[in-house]
């Protein structure tokens, strides 16, 4: 390893570390789960509720699970199951997407909700 290698490595480790800190500071615990299929809102729920809902996607059904303040997809009609393999989300702004079903699950915080309501 040359000196430049070590400098680069040190810089990247520092950058990675600070990105974790930055993201933690900027994101907040989410409160509402929004489910959009093909751009239109299909379902809305509180993140703290315990629910298991079947959503009709563009090419099949998806089973949405909200448990212990986290949302995930437990089953879906899609070829790659990328959405099912994604780890559960809980923070505001996080997304789970199922592209074949054109479905997007987004977590929104309470302040976002109010801002959305005011600005339409």
């Amino acid at each position: 390893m040359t000196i430049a290698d070590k400098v680069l490595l040190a810089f990247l480790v520092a950058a990675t570390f600070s990105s974790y800190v930055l993201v933690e500071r900027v994101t907040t615990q989410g409160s509402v789960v929004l489910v959009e299929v093909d751009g239109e809102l299909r379902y809305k729920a509180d993140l703290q509720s315990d629910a298991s809902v079947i959503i009709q996607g563009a090419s099949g059904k998806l089973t949405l699970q909200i448990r212990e303040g986290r949302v995930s997809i437990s089953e879906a009609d899609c070829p790659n199951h990328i959405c099912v393999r994604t780890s559960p989300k809980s923070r505001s702004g996080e997304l789970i997407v199922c592209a074949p079903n054109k479905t997007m699950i987004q977590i929104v915080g309470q302040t976002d909700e109010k801002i959305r309501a005011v600005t339409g």
Partner: protein
Amino acid sequence: MPPEPVYRSEIHRITTLAFLAAVGIALYVLESIIPLPLPFLKIGLANVSSLVSLVLFGKGGMFTVVVTRILAGSFLTGSLFTPSFLVGLSAGIASAGTMAAAHALGPRFFGVTGISLVGSVTHVLTQLAAVMTMFVRNESLLVLVPLLLTSALVGGLLVAWLSSRMILIMRKEPRSEA
């Protein structure tokens, strides 16, 4: 890393590059089968072939191998001509470009580790930028940056280690008259 030629003839060069491209394709397909919590969080093992090509054959050889690997790999994993193919292609070419630039600074500047890290970080950030420009047009995906940077770091170091071993082995190849 002295830039000594590793090939004996043009045929040897072409077949060695083909071998390296095949290694890249195999690693790429292998990686796409491994399930991960966030599926696009790859370690980028296929970059071993890109890096080895760069060091042994220069940026011309590397670009040949990278483009071949991306096309064939996408074809085999079924993502050719899909939107995610564009993302992968732009990330691959961008990271190859920055690796070539890092390499051009000379062997005394960046070693294999540095070039590999430059490549993996470029790859990961270009992927994110491509997805954010083409698909999800808001800042929500930025929360992924820490995870992406971590995988770029780990992947970059792993690729550097594997590549340097492979370069050593390939350089020791006996030079008999064909």
